[in-house]
């Protein structure tokens, strides 16, 4: 909200060249192995036959195949796909909650994949913040303590922590709820805490892993609107995973569609709707078109009759 933050986000990390990509993903692979002692090295992914064999077999799952993406400074980038398409794996690779099998991730000029443990911890503390589908709040801590958790981990002063947290809680509309425990909050409010916890870190990059999927449609819409509103003043780079096309259309500057671990299309939401790259994408999109068509029909009917009650589909 304040000026330095705005500058920070638009100019990227100090020392980063202007116009540099916020997130650069190059040839990223992730192969999960089930069998004990079995491991897939980064050179193995170049062997196409081996990969195919692994994919068919029971002992390994190829979750991400050769994913390359460029995410610009300050944009909201959406990853869309059905469950199991590898989008959760991808977002977790960005801060190495999941170790990629091979490939590079460069975030604001820093090579995340090459970091050692110490560097990685510092990177997670300073440069990136994440919002989770299942909130991941600490049940034994109050709302305030949950929001300051990341600041505490990186060793910020207690007074400063409180101030920043109060600020973040006000932004997400949870002023006055500081002393409550997560268990007494509704799903929507819990996710607000999750968002406040991420905002308070003041990191240039925000990862959101299906943050609104577990919420009912009205609350979901409300939080989407608030997020859009916040983003207007924050200008963070947001990497947003969802399986909900309408969410993608509302929130995204650009989007990528994933299928079975591969990126099938990248573009602005309008481009994707207008020119679906393949069957998979067009099936996604046709649902949405159908939706819109039906909504229009209902509205038209209501307009034809008396003033209708609001309809939520």
């Amino acid at each position, binding site marked *: 909200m304040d000026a330095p933050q705005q500058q920070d986000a638009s100019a990227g990390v100090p020392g980063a060249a202007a116009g540099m990509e916020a997130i650069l993903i190059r040839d990223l692979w992730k192969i999960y192995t089930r069998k004990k002692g079995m491991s897939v090295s980064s050179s193995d992914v170049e062997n196409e036959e081996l990969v195919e064999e692994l994919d068919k077999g029971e002992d390994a799952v190829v979750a991400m195949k050769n994913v390359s993406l460029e995410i610009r400074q300050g944009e909201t980038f959406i990853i869309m796909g059905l469950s199991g398409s590898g989008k959760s794996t991808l977002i977790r690779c960005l801060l190495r909650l999941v170790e990629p099998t091979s490939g590079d991730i460069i975030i604001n000029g820093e090579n995340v994949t090459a970091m050692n443990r110490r560097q990685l911890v510092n990177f997670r503390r300073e440069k990136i913040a994440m919002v989770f589908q299942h909130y*991941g709040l600490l*049940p*034994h801590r109050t709302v305030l303590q949950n929001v300051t*958790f990341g600041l505490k*981990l990186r060793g910020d002063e207690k007074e400063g922590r409180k101030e920043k947290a109060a600020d973040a809680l006000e932004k997400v509309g949870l002023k006055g709820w500081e002393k409550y425990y997560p*268990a007494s909050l509704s799903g929507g409010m819990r996710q607000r805490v999750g968002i406040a916890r991420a905002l308070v870190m003041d990191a240039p990059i925000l990862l959101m892993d299906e943050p609104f999927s577990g919420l009912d449609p009205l609350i979901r819409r409300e939080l989407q609107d608030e997020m859009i509103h916040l983003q207007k003043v924050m200008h963070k780079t947001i990497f947003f995973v969802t399986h909900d096309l309408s969410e993608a259309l509302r929130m995204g500057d650009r989007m990528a569609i994933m299928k079975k671990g591969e990126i099938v299309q990248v573009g602005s939401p309008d481009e994707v709707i207008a020119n679906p790259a393949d069957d998979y994408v067009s099936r996604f999109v046709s649902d949405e078109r159908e939706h819109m068509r039906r909504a229009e029909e209902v509205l038209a009917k209501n307009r034809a009759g008396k003033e209708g009650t609001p309809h939520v589909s």
Partner: protein
Amino acid sequence: MFPEMFRYHVAGPVNDFINNLIEAYGPVFDSISHGILSFLLGVNSVLSFIPWWAYIAVVFLLSWYSSKKLIASVVLASLPFVIGMFGLWAMAIESLSVIITAVLMALIIGLPLGVLMAELKPVAAVLRPVLDGMQTMPSFVYLIPAMMLFGLGKVPAVLATLIYALPPVIRLTALGLNQVPKPVEEAALAYGATRWQLLKEVRLPLAMPSILAGVNQTTMMALAMVVISSMIGARGLGQEVLLSINRIDVGRGFEAGMSVVFLAIVIDRLTQNMAKRWEPPKR
């Protein structure tokens, strides 16, 4: 019949091992024994110093404070009174001091082992069968060598109790740590928690109800050893039970047995109520 040709005994080597142990390290065992004994006597003198009514008051107040149930608290506080009425107060205090010593030692050893077991897979692989053995091995099997190494009386009783009572606190500590919801751990890691921070800020607090259940179980197991430890000369309620059985005095045995039960109920309720206070708040 199992063929004779496969017969092989470890009895001889085990006997030799124990004998060698006694010969070579006698003084070491003496000093361990001395250390445990002086700690035990310290506990005993503190417990004996506290007047009887103070126990009843403390039991009542603790129970009232944590449960807010008047009748339950009165009933619970009356149980030690009944032990006193049976004339077994001093015996109960002696048993209690053995139990407290053994449980304290179990916690000092068990909590770190539980954490190690949850953190390091190889430790768990080694520890699990050992814990099985500790719980199922008939206690006389290690009671006798304990007696040979540490002499008659309270010290081998404490050690035998320790061996029997240690597994639950280790197991439940490890279980509690492993049961911490993955999304919570993941979130902590995403915000840059080190392994130590994860343990201290997230896993241990969330495992606390399970750990305290382990403490409760360990205490109950220790109580179960009261009678057996009296067989190697530890005084207390168990000795009273043993005497009554030998004299076929059913009534006196019943009184002593009930006293053990009352002691168990009081300790169980108090530790359980304390465990409840550690659960994450529902509201």
